[in-house]
């Protein structure tokens, strides 16, 4: 069994009209056994930047702690928040530092950049960035997520429609993956507010 499939995860981020959504499943498992159904995989870095970490839970926690540390230091020095593009480069650099002993994580970064333009990207475990204009996916359910998102995505969706689309894509994909699921956690971010919602899907 692959080390990336040890804990199980599903992550998706989607771009809408001056907004973005980032969603994850809630399962924490150890191979076939489910340990918890309220495990957090999406972290807020600052009020317009979110980081989702899929893959091995311990590395996701370590990476999150290192990135929060680096961002806090940046805030102290620059007296402002990091832009999403800059943060993505930071994550990529941190991951490539461990090129020959990597963190077993696939991050998804979503934020509002200059002029409230939504920015999303994902990268592999050694920091190869993949910028996309529509959606990015990660985790054990990524293949199902690619299909669901491709089918359901439309450009320039309003926040409410975006929420519905992301939720349906996430729930239908995790239902085909035994290692992810047990509900969903969706953040819809506009320039003025952040809406956090829990989804109830098939609780298995």
């Amino acid at each position, binding site marked *: 069994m692959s080390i990336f499939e040890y*804990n199980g995860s599903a992550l998706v981020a989607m771009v809408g009209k001056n907004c973005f959504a980032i969603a994850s499943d809630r399962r*924490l498992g*150890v191979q076939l*056994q489910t*340990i*918890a159904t309220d*495990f957090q995989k999406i972290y807020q870095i600052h009020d317009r930047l979110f980081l989702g970490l899929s893959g*091995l*839970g*311990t590395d996701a*926690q*370590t990476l999150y702690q290192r990135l929060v540390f680096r961002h806090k230091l940046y805030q102290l020095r620059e007296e402002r928040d990091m832009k999403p593009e800059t943060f993505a480069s930071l994550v990529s650099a941190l991951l490539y530092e461990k090129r020959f*002993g990597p963190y077993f994580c696939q991050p998804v970064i979503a934020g509002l950049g200059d002029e409230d333009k939504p920015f999303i990207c994902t990268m592999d475990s050694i920091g190869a960035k993949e910028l996309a204009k529509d959606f990015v996916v990660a985790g054990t359910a990524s293949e199902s997520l690619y299909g669901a998102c491709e089918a359901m995505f439309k450009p320039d969706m309003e926040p409410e429609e975006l929420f519905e689309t992301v939720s349906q894509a996430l729930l239908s994909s995790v239902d085909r993956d035994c290692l992810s699921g047990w509900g969903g956690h969706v953040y819809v971010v506009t320039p003025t507010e952040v809406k956090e919602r829990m989804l109830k899907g098939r609780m298995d």
Partner: protein
Amino acid sequence: MECVFGLVGNGFAVVVADTSAVHSILVHKPNEDKILLLDSHKLMGASGEPGDRVQFTEYIQKNMSLYQFRNGIPLTTAAAANFTRGELASALRKNPYHVNILLAGYDKDIGPSLYYLDYIATLHKVDKAAFGYGSYFSLAMMDRHYHSGMSLEEAIDLVDKCITEIRSRLVVAPPNFVIKIVDKDGAREYAWRETIKDAPIPSD
């Protein structure tokens, strides 16, 4: 097959562990205490590699005492759990400790809490948790009968149900268990559940 499990009740947390010290097919000792009292209001139940278990848990216990000596106040349960995770995580890619830990504690303003910490340093705050082959039985029993805010009698009754299940369904089931609880009055041993007692030392 080491069994450790625990749950959070109304104003207390309970941790149960088997007490067999096993080496291959030989039981060295039927009354090995695997739940360490970290400080006055914390319990650390550990399972895994015997040498690592004792060395690592004692190392954490001594470091916690040191913090208390230096700063005059004890660590909170969350701080202790995160410190332990940090030690496991930094050792993970050099010289990993093969120890799974259930950390239970009581804090004055927060109440009881239980933390699941596996050997690769995945940390999660939970209401009920279990490690080992016994977890297949004890987690299922707890999923069925657990509810939040259980009284001590109800919780011990559930613990006994889990122990009965492990004894009847696990092929190399450990015969003896120790139950420890932590509440506002501190961490202490509650009871032993023994079916095999060590032979008394003959007096000459």
